[in-house]
């Protein structure tokens, strides 16, 4: 009956969820329609998909026995009390008790029964989705007080009942890691945990996964954006507002889905009784820094309601380099000048019903982060008046003897968003050259019902909105305000039931709707697409439509007669070339269902099997040939033009439900065994999935941008220059083209092919098999350690690949020594595997020394070329490397990283140093590279000769004798850069690095604390060495006077006339001493 009552509540909630999910506009709905559909989805599980949703509550359970006899005690009242709430239970006939839906917090358990001394167990930490097992042995009243039972319920490394590999840090431990709560760096927090490491760009990865193969969560709701699967919260934590943080490397239990290589879940604090408040203000030196935090938590005395509110704000102005030069003077391209962070969270809970067994939680998070950068181009000018941009265009035109004046170029270049004048400067409109606006808002409404002593039900609705605006008005061809991110709405339902003493069963289902947002306008790209569009009917090269937008006069770059095709159709020329505009059209629905059982076979042995089904529906157009244009949006597997009439016949055998509607079963298994009181082992296996981000699948230009040209006949401008004939250009995906139906189609495909490629590229999800094993031990004195070796194998990893065009099985020459390729498309041809070991050592203490030491070793291999562009985000693989089945050690991870976070408290002082160390990051151009020779792939010595036929991502360090070059197979290397190199790129490590931060606090009394934090104690300002891309070889180890120089001066008059030599210098590798130097701040904290 109580379960049925629970379902009725679900029905009522289903009304609201379905209404909000399905209708963004106000719309009437009916009870029967919505309940029927949503309940069917959630409970019947007709559709499968995946959203990564963990929980925010845990379970406390255990067994109470008589100390003397060991007999189970029934009827013992057990209560768990924390400032955030109180829970109670009574032992059953077997002495077993359990409490569900316990908010994550630190509790004191009290056991009381007539005839027995009460027993108190403090410091019981409850973490989300975990069970805290607390057994009690009670003594009869004639004896002295019962002893405390200490069973691995601390936040330390020893967690004997933990089946799944999880690292949880409490609020106190967060402060140890961060130094103080003013440190909002989530990256620092994550990478201080075992299994997490910083990649070479400083972004956190979990067990070596890519940046978008991780599940970020806050309060159990996914915090990844709908378009790229990146984090939405700028990797900033809300200062005071965290209760604990939970990192689950690997697959986790069946509760976790679409989690890739691991999941991070942040849990917000709750209000408590009596109320508390905390305020901090800080001001810094070494660089500009002002910060303020404030929080207030309160609750009713009877625990009926609680509310927690926190605000975190920081303004930072960055300095760089040896002399602490402000970024504006440093001239460091794309450096951050200022950062503004604001975050507000509120967490409200209301309990109701008999014995307050029901609760509703409303959680809201609002974050605003703004990064203003240095120079993304000419800092004073929009693209149209940017001399550098004009020089770049003319650099291309000059190769064929043409030139366009700056004024002409400006007259046909479109405006970026919010630009109103051709010669408008950024300064006149108060716009910075580059600004990142990264807001995110999240709302969660959660209903919990402790149905009875053995059953707990939870349902939640959530909405996460995160659309970043990359405002880059001066980024030449990319100029404009780019919006990227999306909106996610979802519902989840979870049922937990204690079946007898031994089985804790969980079942649940999720549904999420992802609507991405991606708008990238590019006026300059519109111009450039007419140079490279590939729609020319004669040469296959760019069709030069920009000439059509100019008047046909003596100023025409190719002379009178070559310009002005659009004169009869447009009222006046010059007219602005339509900008390139990429917009996302696809949406996605994620769904999942799972079942998980934790079986306590014995008091020492827990076994947790589980099964999860994840699925996604990508809402994409059906593959096919558009009868109106005879083009396709997907790359066909065959293309038959031998038709008597109508469009070519295409097949799309590679686009199936596996790509557009994947359904993935994921078995999970975990177990833990407590060998002795202080020793435990655990093992887990889990298959996990990562659905391809919509940004990898959908690269579509909306044709509506060119609709104004649809009534103008297509005209192959470049072909006309060659032949004098007026012919239509070609439209469609290269290799699958037809004559354009009109000029609008022509412009559309030029833009699509130049910058996005194949419009829609669905791929299968990536799968992982995760294995790990742990051994943990606790020592006296609060020390504990846990060591976890692990292995992960990835299948069907996504990567962009270009395939060669084959005719009768032979590659087609491009006439320049190479071959023709189809445009790159996203495929599942990536592969990776990784092994590693994680170590965690903890020391817990209420006073004196506490802290943790972590170490992470990762040995990961992938078929993505190390150090290639976007290696751990949206990578690409050159065809020869793929065909040779080359595997490389990944280039974005240091194989070994450690962190030591200490905290020493005594007599009103707190000293908290944090150290991190890595053995270096992969470096080096490598001695070999994969390349095609006569259409056959080979691994060849990577020289400046083979560099023209391969895709060595980092350039080369070996130079042939130009008079006696030798063949690609036997190159005659006359000089090298003289540096040690590995076989492949990234084959060497740069030098180890140790960094340190230090916080010192002094209690002033009256609830006040004065603190001082010193960041970057060792003043590390150097980025890792990078291969000098402007290196002039003279002889082995010697470089020439052009090394480091660029043909165009960058940013004249801005302190860095020729910016590149400063960073590139004349050496084989250059090091940029342009990191942020040592800085400090003072702060005052008041706690009540």
């Amino acid at each position, binding site marked *: 009956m109580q379960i049925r009552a629970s379902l009725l509540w679900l029905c009522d909630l289903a009304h609201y969820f379905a209404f909000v999910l399905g209708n963004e506009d106000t719309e009437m709905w009916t009870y029967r329609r919505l309940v029927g559909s949503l309940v069917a989805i959630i409970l019947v599980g007709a559709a499968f998909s995946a959203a990564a949703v963990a929980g925010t509550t845990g379970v406390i359970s255990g067994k109470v026995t008589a100390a003397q006899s060991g007999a189970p005690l029934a009827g013992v009242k057990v209560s768990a009390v924390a400032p955030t709430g109180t829970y109670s239970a009574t032992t059953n006939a077997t002495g077993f008790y359990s409490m569900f839906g316990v908010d994550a917090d630190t509790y004191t358990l009290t056991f009381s029964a007539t005839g027995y001394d009460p027993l108190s167990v403090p410091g019981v930490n409850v973490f989300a989705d975990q069970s805290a097992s607390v057994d009690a042995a009670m003594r009869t009243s004639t004896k002295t007080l019962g002893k405390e039972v200490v069973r691995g319920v601390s936040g330390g490394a020893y967690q004997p009942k933990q089946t799944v590999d999880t690292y949880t840090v409490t609020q106190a431990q967060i402060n140890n890691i961060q130094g103080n709560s003013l440190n909002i760096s*989530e*990256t620092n927090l994550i990478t201080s945990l075992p299994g997490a490491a910083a990649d070479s*760009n*400083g972004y956190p990865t979990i067990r070596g996964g890519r940046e978008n193969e991780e599940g970020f969560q806050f309060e159990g709701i996914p915090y990844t*954006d709908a378009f790229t699967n*990146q984090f939405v919260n*700028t*990797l900033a934590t809300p200062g005071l507002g965290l209760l604990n943080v939970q990192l689950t490397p690997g697959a986790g239990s069946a509760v976790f889905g679409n989690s890739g290589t691991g999941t991070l879940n942040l849990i917000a604090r709750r209000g408590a009784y009596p109320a508390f408040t905390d305020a901090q203000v800080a001001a810094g030196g070494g660089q500009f820094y002002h910060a303020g935090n404030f929080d207030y938590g309160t609750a009713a005395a009877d625990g009926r309601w609680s509310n927690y509110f926190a605000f975190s704000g920081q303004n930072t102005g960055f300095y760089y380099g040896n002399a602490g030069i402000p970024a504006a003077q440093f001239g460091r391209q*794309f*450096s*951050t000048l200022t*950062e503004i*962070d604001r975050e507000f969270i509120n967490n409200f809970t209301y309990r109701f019903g008999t014995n307050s067994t029901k609760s509703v939680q409303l959680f809201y998070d609002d974050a605003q982060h703004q990064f203003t950068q240095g120079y993304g181009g000419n800092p004073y000018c929009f693209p149209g008046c940017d001399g550098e941009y004009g020089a770049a265009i003319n650099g291309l035109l000059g190769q064929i003897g043409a030139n366009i004046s700056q004024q002409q170029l400006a007259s046909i270049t479109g405006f970026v968003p919010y630009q109103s004048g051709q010669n408008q400067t950024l300064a006149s409109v108060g716009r910075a050259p580059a600004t990142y606006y990264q807001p995110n808002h999240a709302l969660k409404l959660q209903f919990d019902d402790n149905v009875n002593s053995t059953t707990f039900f939870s349902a939640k609705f959530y909405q996460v909105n995160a659309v*970043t605006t*990359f405002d880059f008005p001066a980024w030449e061809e*990319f100029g404009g305000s780019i919006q*990227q991110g999306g909106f996610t709405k979802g519902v989840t339902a979870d049922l937990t039931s204690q079946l007898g003493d031994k089985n804790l069963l969980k079942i649940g289902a999720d549904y999420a709707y992802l609507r991405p947002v991606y708008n*990238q306008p590019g006026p300059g790209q519109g111009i450039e697409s007419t140079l490279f569009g590939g729609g020319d009917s004669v040469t296959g090269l760019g069709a030069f439509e920009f000439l059509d937008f100019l008047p046909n006069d003596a100023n025409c770059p190719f002379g009178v007669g070559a310009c002005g095709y659009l004169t009869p159709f447009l009222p006046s020329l010059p007219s602005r070339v339509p900008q390139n505009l990429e917009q996302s059209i696809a949406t996605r629905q994620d769904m999942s269902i799972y079942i998980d059982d934790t079986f306590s076979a014995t008091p020492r042995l827990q076994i947790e099997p589980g099964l999860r089904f994840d699925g996604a529906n990508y809402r994409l157009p059906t593959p096919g040939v558009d009868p109106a244009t005879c083009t396709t949006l997907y790359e066909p597997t065959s293309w038959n033009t031998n038709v008597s009439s109508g469009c070519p016949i295409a097949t799309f055998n590679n686009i199936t439900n596996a790509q557009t509607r994947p359904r993935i079963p994921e078995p999970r298994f975990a177990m833990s065994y407590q060998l002795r009181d202080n020793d435990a082992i655990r093992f887990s296996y889990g298959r996990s999935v990562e659905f391809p981000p919509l940004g990898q699948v959908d690269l579509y230009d909306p044709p509506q941008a060119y609709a104004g040209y649809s009534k103008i006949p297509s005209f192959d401008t470049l072909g006309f220059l060659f032949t004098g004939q007026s012919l239509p250009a070609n439209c469609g995906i290269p290799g699958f083209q037809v004559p354009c139906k009109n000029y609008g189609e022509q412009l559309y495909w030029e833009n699509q092919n130049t910058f996005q490629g194949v419009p829609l590229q669905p791929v299968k999800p990536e799968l992982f098999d995760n294995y790990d094993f742990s051994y943990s031990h606790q020592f006296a004195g609060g020390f504990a350690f846990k060591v976890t070796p692990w292995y992960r194998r990835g299948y069907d990893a996504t990567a962009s690949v270009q395939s060669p065009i084959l005719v009768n099985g032979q590659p087609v020459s491009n006439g*320049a*020594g190479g071959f023709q390729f189809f445009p790159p498309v996203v495929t599942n041809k990536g592969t990776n595997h990784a092994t590693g070991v994680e170590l965690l050592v903890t020391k817990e203490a209420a006073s004196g020394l506490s802290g943790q030491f972590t170490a992470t070793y990762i040995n990961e291999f992938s078929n993505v070329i190390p150090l290639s562009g976007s290696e751990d985000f*949206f990578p690409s693989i050159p065809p020869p490397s793929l065909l040779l089945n080359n595997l490389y050690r990944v280039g974005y991870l240091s194989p070994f990283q450690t962190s030591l976070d200490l905290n020493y408290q005594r007599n009103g002082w707190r000293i908290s140093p944090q150290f991190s160390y890595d053995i270096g990051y992969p470096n080096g151009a490598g001695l070999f590279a994969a390349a095609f*020779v*006569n259409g056959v792939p080979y691994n060849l010595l990577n020289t*400046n*000769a083979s560099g*023209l036929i391969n895709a060595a991502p980092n*350039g080369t360090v070996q*130079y*042939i*004798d*130009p*008079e*006696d070059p030798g*063949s690609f197979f036997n190159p*005659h290397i006359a*000089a090298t850069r*003289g540096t*040690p190199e590995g076989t492949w790129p990234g084959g060497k490590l*740069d030098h*180890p690095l140790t960094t340190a931060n230090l916080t010192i606090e002094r209690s002033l009394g009256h609830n006040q604390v004065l603190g001082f934090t010193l960041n970057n104690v060792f003043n*590390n300002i*150097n*980025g890792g*060495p990078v291969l000098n891309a402007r*290196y002039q070889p*003279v*002889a*082995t*180890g*010697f470089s*020439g*006077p*052009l*090394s480091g*120089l*660029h*043909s165009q001066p960058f940013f004249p008059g801005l302190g860095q006339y020729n910016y590149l030599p400063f960073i590139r210098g004349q050496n*084989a*590798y250059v*090091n940029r001493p342009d990191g942020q130097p040592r800085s400090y701040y003072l702060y005052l904290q008041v706690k009540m």
Partner: protein
Amino acid sequence: MKFRHVIGALIAGALLAGCSTNGSSINPTVSPGNLGNDKLQMAVGTANIGFDGTVGLNVVTTFRQPNGLSAVLLDAPTITGPAGFVVTANAPSMDAGTNHISGSVQVSTGATPPPNTFGFAGGAFKYGIAPYNSDNTGNPYPNGPGLYAEPFYSGDPVPIAGGPPAYPFFNNGTFISGFVGYSQGFSAFETPATAGSYGVSLIVPIANGPTRTFSTSATLTSLAPLPGVGAPSVTEDGTGGLSNVSATVPADARVFETMFYIADTTSGLFFTIGPLAGTGTLSGALPDTLGKCSGNNCQNGAGASASLAAGDNYAVYAIVYDYPAFEASPPGSSSQTPALTGPNSGGQADISISNVFSSTYGGGGINRRRPHVAHRIH
């Protein structure tokens, strides 16, 4: 706190250049080579320029590492003549009327080449002076493919490069496409030679070390040119080759060897027949299938293509040497100090360039016009 990746910028790699905070201030250790082990050689002689009817100066240089490869990839050569040596007024202004023939070191990108003979591009390499000076783009042929057309200062110089069959076949797709043929090691100047001591000095500009200078000298004792040679006679076999290429080399005790050069100015391919020893009527043949093909030994297989395609314009000329020119040339020569004078050359390196035979393959007719070539790279 991290800003998020923008996908659009991924396309051009314009991402987040400043996020790296890992690594150290130490760059990888550089182990420099020992330039002191490099050797510069020079020989001088006369150049009998048959198609212009003049006699000029010939300079042969090698600048090699111990393994026989080019010593450096960048240098600025200057050839200085003895008293009385005056460079022709046809030379670029910095050299005309002086006693030196020079090049310059480039110190900034995009600079206008100076008005001297070798400009920024010319440098001394394994065998001769060639427009292959490196730049900072990593391209092995930053100044465009090809070798210098010679002689310098001629109104109509001819391209000279060594190709098959005399040299190993390289038109099979396994060589970089910018390589057109092997340097013949000499620099002929259409300016009157003067007896006396000539020197060559190379400035090797080094940014991460001290600039080095290499120099050597050679003496021109005899101004007597090698005998002139008429244009070769050529017989096409109609199947892509030349069944007979012959020329008459007048007797001269100094003559060491003669090479025939065939330049297909339509396809850009170069072929060489030789070396042919002795004097008198010397002849050879150009096989049919030395055109571009794909794969090792493809020139002997089904995928072979004609050396000279129907309709291709081509030119043939002979060069007579009084020193082992072919033996000193790459790729066969790996000696650091090959012989640059002949047994009977009197310590000089003299050459005689024949008149030019020009024609269109399969087009009939004999055209004795000199082939038009682009001005030399500067």
